[in-house]
């Protein structure tokens, strides 16, 4: 096999979402990029796995080395078969699963979709719209109306309320200036909306009882702004799982000359001198670069002080045998489940049309800020959604915690080393793209971030 190049402009370690965007952006403007990953799969904690690969997933490889930082690996990883008799059938269909460690949605009019389009990366990916939004109210699932017509068609919203709500929604911009109350829910209640309506609007905002007015209004606005572009809701999901997205950026990087090597077990150290990284040493060679980018997970402890992780994201992955709210056509559901007063559990229920699970099964992702352990954090919700005789049954469940690293700061990081945090708890990728852009701009000020890639259609050869 060839040797890796010994000198490049940018050396990247880790193929997570943020690293992959930086890679594409750098290759795109003509920088030579070498992109390595000690793992034999793309995506780090943003990756997708088939079922067998998920079972084989080992978040804590026994030998720590300079490129496996245990502080940042997944914690509490545990899976269980609740219906053993289905195991064989599911494992036979293992390949039909694309199970995200970090599933995300995209706002139809959000920055990310915009970036996909302007940079022409959209051509690598397909999306499905979320077909319905649900919330949990008074012990049952409720459809959240997603458009003016939905609101007006809803039996559960009175005519008077409809008027109040429309007025409210059309005047969101003014509200921020004119209202004194600082709590979003209190504000909604003060507008004499019924419990139902308050719950719907809270769901649109993904708000808890503690969400501030500013945050709440901003989120509702985002929700409403993304309506009416693709499908019936403001959200898109990536076909074959969110892990496709990081790969799409890697492909773009490669098309523009980026060199890729996964499964790099022979990395020894990043060497530094005078607060600069000078080279990467592998068992075979030394590689020099002007700049270095690594994921936290794959960065040596010596560059990361202090390490203090305060927050974790609780995750659960379930395979079930039917939808939480069966309907004639397969639905892609996003359930906003308020748990207590402080926490929202985001639940994605994905059917086979998303390319993430086989027919006749559903893949359910639960994500929430961690309070105790993933098992405990989701116990109430799972009890409500999956225990009745007419409710879906859980065939398989997998739990883990993702360290929340998006707001960590480190001291004395070498000046040409840029650190990429892992996944955050947001619904979408916005903050992560922001992070990638910031790092890009620090390395290459004044250069364009992901300009449009030429269209292959522009080089059509006919006969």
């Amino acid at each position, binding site marked *: 096999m060839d040797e890796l190049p010994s000198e490049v402009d940018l050396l990247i370690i880790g193929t997570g979402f943020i690293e992959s965007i930086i890679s594409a952006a750098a290759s795109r403007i003509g920088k030579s990029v070498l992109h390595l990953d000690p793992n034999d799969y793309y995506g780090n904690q943003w990756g997708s796995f088939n079922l067998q690969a998920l079972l084989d997933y080992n978040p804590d490889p026994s030998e720590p080395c300079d490129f496996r930082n245990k502080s940042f690996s997944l914690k509490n990883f545990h899976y269980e078969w609740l219906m053993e008799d289905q195991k064989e059938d599911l494992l036979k269909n293992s390949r039909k699963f694309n199970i995200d460690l970090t599933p995300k949605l995209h706002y139809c009019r959000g920055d990310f979709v915009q970036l996909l389009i302007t940079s022409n990366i959209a*051509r690598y990916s397909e999306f499905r719209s979320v077909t319905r939004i649900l919330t949990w109210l008074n012990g049952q699932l409720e459809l959240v109306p997603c458009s003016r017509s939905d609101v007006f068609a809803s039996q559960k919203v009175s005519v008077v309320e409809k008027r109040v709500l429309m007025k409210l929604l059309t005047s969101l911009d003014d509200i921020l200036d004119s209202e004194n109350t600082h709590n979003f829910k209190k504000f909604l209640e003060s507008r004499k909306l019924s419990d139902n309506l308050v719950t719907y609007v809270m769901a649109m905002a993904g708000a808890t009882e503690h969400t501030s007015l500013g945050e709440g209004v901003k989120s509702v606005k985002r929700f409403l702004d993304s309506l009416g572009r693709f499908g019936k809701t403001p959200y898109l999901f990536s076909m074959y799982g969110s892990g496709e997205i990081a790969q799409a950026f890697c492909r773009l990087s490669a098309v523009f000359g980026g060199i890729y090597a996964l499964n790099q077990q022979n990395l020894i150290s990043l060497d530094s001198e005078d607060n600069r990284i000078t080279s990467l040493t592998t068992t075979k060679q030394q590689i020099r670069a002007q700049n270095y980018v690594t994921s936290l997970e794959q960065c040596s402890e010596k560059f990361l002080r202090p390490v203090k992780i305060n927050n974790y994201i609780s995750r659960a992955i379930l395979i079930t045998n039917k939808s939480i709210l069966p309907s004639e056509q397969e639905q892609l559901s996003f359930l906003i489940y308020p748990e207590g007063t402080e926490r929202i559990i985001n639940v994605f229920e994905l059917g086979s049309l998303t390319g993430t699970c086989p027919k006749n099964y559903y893949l359910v992702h639960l994500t929430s800020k961690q309070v105790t352990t993933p098992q405990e954090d989701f116990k109430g919700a799972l009890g409500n959604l999956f225990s009745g005789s007419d409710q879906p049954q859980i065939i398989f469940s997998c739990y883990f915690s993702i360290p929340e690293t998006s707001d960590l700061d480190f001291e004395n990081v070498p000046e040409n080393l840029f650190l990429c945090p892992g996944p955050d708890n947001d619904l979408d990728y916005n903050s992560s793209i922001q992070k990638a852009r910031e790092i890009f701009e620090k390395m290459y000020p004044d250069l364009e971030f992901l300009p449009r890639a030429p269209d292959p259609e522009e080089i059509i050869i006919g006969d």
Partner: protein
Amino acid sequence: MDDYKFLFKVVLVGNAGVGKTCLVRRFTQGLFPPGQGATIGVDFMIKTVDVGNEKVKLQIWDTAGQERFRSITQSYYRSAHALILVYDISCQPTFDCLPDWLREIEEYASSKVLRVLVGNKIDRDDREIPIQVGEEFAERHNMYFLETSAKESDNVERLFMQIAEDLMKQARMTNVPRYDPNSYNVDSSSQESSCCSRLT
């Protein structure tokens, strides 16, 4: 408005240096690039061909060098209609790697994908893999087989035309282009009314 009825995605895989890029360029541009290496910024090439009375558009994807260290993205294989696995008849190791490639194909490509094995560089006089050996391998794994020279333009046209014809046959039998109102390509072509899409 495009005047083609069918669009097929064809992907090439195989070890570095076996001539994938040369095959694509020979077919789409009619030339044999003197220089080495992939062309920067070219993602896939398109060529429209006639099969019977129909215009068929072939979208031909090359590996962008990610095969060099066995790091092809899974999505490269997704929704491919045909897959061309290439080795170099003058280089035994490229043939020895075929089982690894097959494993990867089984893992990531659709089981329905049309698979073709190609031994390239038959213009060379230092052949290491006899034609029968390639044939047998292809037969054992249910693949079509063809030997080519991108340099001399031997069998290149035939390779892609054969693929286009077979895919057309398949498409006619199964009525492929299904319209799924819930899926989107987010490019400009998508309608607001649909539910799965490419973004444009």
